[in-house]
Structures are given as structure tokens and as C-alpha cells.
């Protein structure tokens, strides 16, 4: 009952974060995101700035609205693990994606022996290109 004992009267009341300030900071960061979007920055710079701003908003929300800053440090491990795993997932995909972009190669399902092709002709796999 630590939460109730800490709050229910005898300790310093309203010792939590200033929620109004956190809300204002989040609103300002959202506004900055819209400004960055509206500027004519190069796509890479714009994406980097927007990701950084979103990260800052996420940290603010997690630390002060979800009270992670007031919890035991070990609890932060539970929150950080998915961030690490997802970051690793994105970075893990980059070599494959950049290689495809760099070579502009379409996916080929193995090389076939020309001699075998004459005996057993097989139609090439259909290319799945998103149409928009």
C-alpha cells in the first residue's frame, strides 16, 4: 500500500510532477513537429528531426505521465526492453533494404542451370510491385 500511504495525507501532498508543465511541453513539441513538417528541409533532415522530437515526447510521457521517473529503476528495464528490441529490428533490416536500394536488384529465387531449363521449363515467379 505504498502508493496510498505516500499520498493519503501525512507526507508532502502534491509532490508529483507538474502535470500542467508536462502537458505544455508536449503541446510545444507537437507544434514544433508541425513547423518542421511545414518547412522545406531535405527529407532526411526532416525525418531525423521529427524522430528526435517524437522520441522526446515519448520520454516525457513515459517519465512523468506514466511516473517512470518515480518508480524503481528496475521497472524501467521492462519499459526499455521493447525499445531496444524494436531499434535492433529496424537496424537489422537496414543492410538488406539498403542493398536492395543500392543495387536496384529485383528479388531472384535462385539461379537455374540453362541445361535444366531446356528439359523442364519453369515460368519465372510473378513480381509483386505495389500499384498506387
Amino acid at each position, binding site marked *: 500500500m505504498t502508493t496510498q500511504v505516500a499520498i493519503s495525507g501525512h507526507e508532502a501532498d502534491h509532490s508529483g510532477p507538474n502535470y500542467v508543465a508536462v502537458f505544455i511541453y508536449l503541446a510545444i513539441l507537437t507544434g514544433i513537429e508541425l513547423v518542421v513538417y511545414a518547412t522545406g528541409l531535405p527529407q532526411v533532415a526532416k525525418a531525423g528531426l521529427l524522430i528526435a522530437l517524437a522520441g522526446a515526447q515519448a520520454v516525457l510521457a513515459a517519465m512523468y*505521465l506514466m511516473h517512470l521517473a518515480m518508480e524503481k529503476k528496475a521497472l524501467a528495464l521492462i519499459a526499455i526492453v521493447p525499445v531496444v528490441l524494436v531499434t535492433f529490428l529496424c537496424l537489422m533490416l537496414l543492410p538488406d533494404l539498403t542493398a536492395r536500394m543500392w543495387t536496384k536488384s529485383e528479388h531472384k529465387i535462385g539461379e537455374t542451370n540453362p541445361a535444366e531449363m531446356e528439359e523442364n521449363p519453369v515460368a519465372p515467379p510473378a513480381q509483386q510491385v505495389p500499384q498506387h
Partner: protein
Amino acid sequence: MAPGVTASTHDRDAAHAERLEPSLTPGNPGKLGMWTFLAGDAMIFGAAFAAYGALRINNPNWPVPAGYLGIAIPAVMTFILLCSCFTMVEALDGVQHGMQSKFQMFMALTVLGGLLFLGMQAFEWHRLLIEKGMSLQRDLFDATFFILTGFHGCHVFGGVMYNGVLLIRGMRGKIPVAKAGLVEIAGLYWQFVGLVWIVIFTFIYLI
């Protein structure tokens, strides 16, 4: 001691309790459960975002999202959800300090914010489906948009139901200070939903 509990079992239980590690969330074990659930949910969303990024990077014909989807409605939705995150944490503050009227008012505002968000999302989906002709089957841009926003919308709907039940229970006087942990757990879920929307707004609409 309770009937059937001997001195030896009582001592053994006490010794066992002393050997246990202190809880990560003393006094509110449900909070640890909610954090664990949110970690798993974050991985689902993270995998969806990673897949979205991989599909988008690999396709040079991907349309500029903001130009196609529009920014005004999502920006307002973002602000509404931010406001509801603020009202949620104020509701928690109210119940923790025994201020039932504050809790009920801010929880009602939180539920209202969630309903507004869902209504605006329904309006946007209707506009995109009917006016723009978007659909899950048309192409990957449409499919990823509807899956990501729809999955998040389901979370918002669940949160609205969750908060609505707490509001009704609060209005019946069934959430005193001693049960503030229930609101704290719901607050964690609602803040997570808002946090995910910030990421969706950034990656799907702005970038």
C-alpha cells in the same frame, strides 16, 4: 492465528516471505502486470512500425502521406489525445488525494476525449474510404495506414471502455483512496495509447 495455522507453518511462511525479493511495484502488483503487458504491446506496435518502414523504404513510388491524407484532422486528434492524457493524470491525482469530484470530472473528460478521438478517426476513415477510394486491398500504402491506425483505434476503444467502467464505479463511490491503484493502472494504459499515437502521427503522417 487463523484456524488450522500452526505456529510452525506461520513461522515457515514468515521466513519464506522474508526470502522473497521486494516487489518492483510495492503495494500495487497490478501495476507490474500492466507494465509487462504494455511492454508486449509495444513490441507489437514496434514490429508493425518496422514492417511499415521496410515496405516504404523499398518502394520508390510511396506517396507523400501528409499530402494524401491531410494534416489538419490528425493534428487536432493529436491535441485531443494529449489533453485526455493530461485529464487522466489529473483524475489519478484526484483519487489519490481523496477528491472524488475532481476524479469524476477529469475521468469524464478523459472518456470524452477518447470518444472525440474515435469519432474523428471514424470521420477520417470515412473520408478516405469513400472520397479517396482507399481500401485494404488497393495497395500497401492503404493497407499499412488502415492496419496501423485501426489497431491503435482498437486500443483507444478499449481504453474508453476501461475508463468508462472506472468512472461509473467512481460515481457509485466504489473507488476510494485505498483503491487508487486501479486508476493508476488504467492511467498507465491510457498514457501508452497516447504515446503510441504520437509515434503514429510522426511516422505515418509527417515523415
